[in-house]
């Protein structure tokens, strides 16, 4: 399983596994140790890793990736409705359906590159979103969103269990997928997803994808047909998105068209850029940060804000609330937009590049202690 990986990669993977499994503990000091949020970290981490395989490696900027997330959600919920509440078939079905969907869209979109590719993927995503709202209502249940109901078929479940009074909940062979079990299910999948992404990045295939990003024309001149490689990357990336989508359905069996809107596609671009496109850890970091701060900031309002500054004199308190007020609660997207702009302007490589720079600065100052050496090794591994 680890054949061909360097020592650093193995360490990175082991470190990542430990960190992911211990996430409830790690998130405890910042007050994020409740399962709902942790599930989101894991799910959007998977989404961002998948997006990074396409954007970070091949440089193709897809603006319609949320379509695959949405399709995965719908597929998973249909599996819950039609066959069984067990999550395994739902996840597999979600991944497969969005993989096929990605193959179709990728086959067409990848005929063009650059901004044309972005626009084509955006067009397809908007098309799916609009269709999900209008014509495909029998499949998607339109604006209400696809939900479980009492009289769903659930063929397999009916053979074994008596229909209860309430709605059944998603489970893994009897283990209910809410709270911490749900988180650990997502977490295991996150680790697997990370491992696959690591193997891809270290493989000749990953090298080929990087070559596409660096100079596709030259690749063509040397006789490589790059399109199958790019298409494979696109499909893998779509399957990751489908996995994330079906996990969203696992933790909360409900699928709505708004998951496919282009703002959702924009969000995963933000996560990847914020963390650092093309790095291994960056996208997960970005996804976690955005979901964490979204959760923290969007719950604040002016009242809470002035409470937390209540140790200050009144006039200072009022000024601070006046200044910070627009950026929290409803205005959280404003803060996100500003941070995002700042990252693109000053740190195009994302947070990972920031860490590298801090490390370089530290080393130039002559601080050669063990922590710096650790950071160096993990940085090399991450790249």
């Amino acid at each position, binding site marked *: 399983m680890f054949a061909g990986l360097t020592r650093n990669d193995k360490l990175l993977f082991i470190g990542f596994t430990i960190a992911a499994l211990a996430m409830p503990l790690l998130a405890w000091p910042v007050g994020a140790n409740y399962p709902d949020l942790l599930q989101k970290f894991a799910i959007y981490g998977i989404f961002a890793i998948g997006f990074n395989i396409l954007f970070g490696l091949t440089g193709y900027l897809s603006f319609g990736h949320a379509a695959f997330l949405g399709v995965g959600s719908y597929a998973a919920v249909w599996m819950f409705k039609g066959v069984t509440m067990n999550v395994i078939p739902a996840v597999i079905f979600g991944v497969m359906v969005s993989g096929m969907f990605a193959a179709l869209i990728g086959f*067409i979109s990848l005929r*063009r590159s650059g*901004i044309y590719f*972005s626009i*084509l993927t955006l067009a397809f995503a908007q098309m799916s979103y609009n*269709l999900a709202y209008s*014509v495909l209502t029998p499949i998607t249940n339109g604006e209400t969103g696809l939900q479980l109901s009492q009289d769903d078929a659930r063929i397999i479940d009916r053979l074994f269990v008596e229909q209860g009074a309430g709605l059944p909940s998603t489970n893994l062979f009897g283990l209910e997928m809410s709270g911490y079990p749900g988180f650990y299910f997502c977490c295991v999948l996150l680790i697997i997803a990370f491992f696959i992404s690591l193997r891809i990045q270290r493989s000749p295939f990953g090298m080929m994808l990087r070559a596409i990003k660096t100079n596709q024309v030259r690749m063509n001149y040397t006789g490589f047909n790059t399109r199958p490689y790019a298409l494979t990357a696109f499909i893998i990336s779509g399957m990751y998105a489908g996995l994330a989508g079906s996990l969203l359905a696992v933790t909360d069996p409900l699928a709505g068209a708004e998951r496919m809107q282009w*703002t959702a596609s924009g969000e995963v671009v933000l996560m990847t850029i914020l963390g650092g496109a093309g790095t291994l850890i960056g996208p997960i970091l970005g996804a976690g940060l955005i979901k964490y701060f979204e959760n923290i900031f969007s719950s604040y309002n002016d009242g809470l804000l002035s409470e937390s500054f209540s140790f200050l004199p009144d006039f200072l308190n009022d000024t601070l609330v006046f200044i910070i007020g627009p950026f929290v609660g409803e205005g959280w997207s404003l803060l996100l937009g500003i941070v995002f702009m700042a990252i693109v302007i000053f740190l195009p490589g994302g947070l990972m590049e920031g860490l590298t720079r801090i490390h370089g600065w530290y080393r130039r100052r002559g601080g050669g202690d063990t922590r710096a050496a650790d950071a160096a090794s993990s940085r090399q591994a991450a790249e």
Partner: protein
Amino acid sequence: MDVILLQLLNGLDKGGAYALIALGLTIIFGTLGVVNFAHGALFMLGAFCAVSVQAVLTISKKVKDESITFFDAYKEVPYLEAWWGDTGAMIIDYAVPISILVAIPLMLLIGLGMERGLIRYFYKRPHAEQILVTFGLAIVVQELIKAQFGANPIPTPAPEVIAGSASIGLWFGLGEAVVYPWWRLIYLAFAGVVIASAFAFLNLTTYGMVVRAGMADRETVGLLGINIQRRFTIVFGMAAVIAGMAGVMYTPILPPDYHMGMDFLVLSFVVVVVGGMGSLSGAVLAGFMLGILQSFASMNEVKSIFPGIDQIIIYLIAVVILLVRPRGLMGRKGVMET
């Protein structure tokens, strides 16, 4: 027949908005080589110029309502009306046309500020980063507007005189039943005038000629001793003004809200790509074409044959065109090929 005429006009209206935004996008792309995802935000800012002007003109004071005698009732009377009576009321009525006068210098300033403050640092950076930073800017502008004006659409009616409809049926000999709002006709004429003057400016004036020369070969023009950068900055400002004016004029048709910019931007980009990146006439042509197709696709007769076609027609056409004519309708060789 009358249905077709009405749909054609509807399509031209919508197409006018697409064409104006797409024109600005193409000008910016052709001159500065920057993909501006914040152009929809400029369109929205224009629309909110109209909203602000209307809000300023209708600043009111409370006066006692004399018509109610049982108890003390108060009503709001705008200062303008209180000071100048009917003249004041008329000024308020004409809020939208007046706001164009406000919007032009304001949007020019915003455009110049945006170019000098942000865009110019992104000339040499990859297109992906240009898209991302302007996308971030669009989010910021949108959220600021939302924080200031709220999330609901704000109605900004056209002046009373032209609030009615023109009986265009009589003009074309189709009977009196065929009517069309005056303001939409005015919008159409306005779009035509703006597009024509933009083309005239670029094609008939010396200034425009230099700009076009700079688009073709920036270095040579620079070597001839012309400060091409300054001209490009001004052209960026003009593109912002075009988008802003389009926004102002569109407010009576569609009450502005904070996400209208993004809605139009996505479509306008599709329009630019269909028309051919870097081709001005392509952008205008594609804008009107897609507007008309969209409006015909939303007819009930068409929808009963192809359900949902009105939702996806534009994207469908974009996909087909990009696959059949990869450079768009009128795209030139060598522009954005990578």
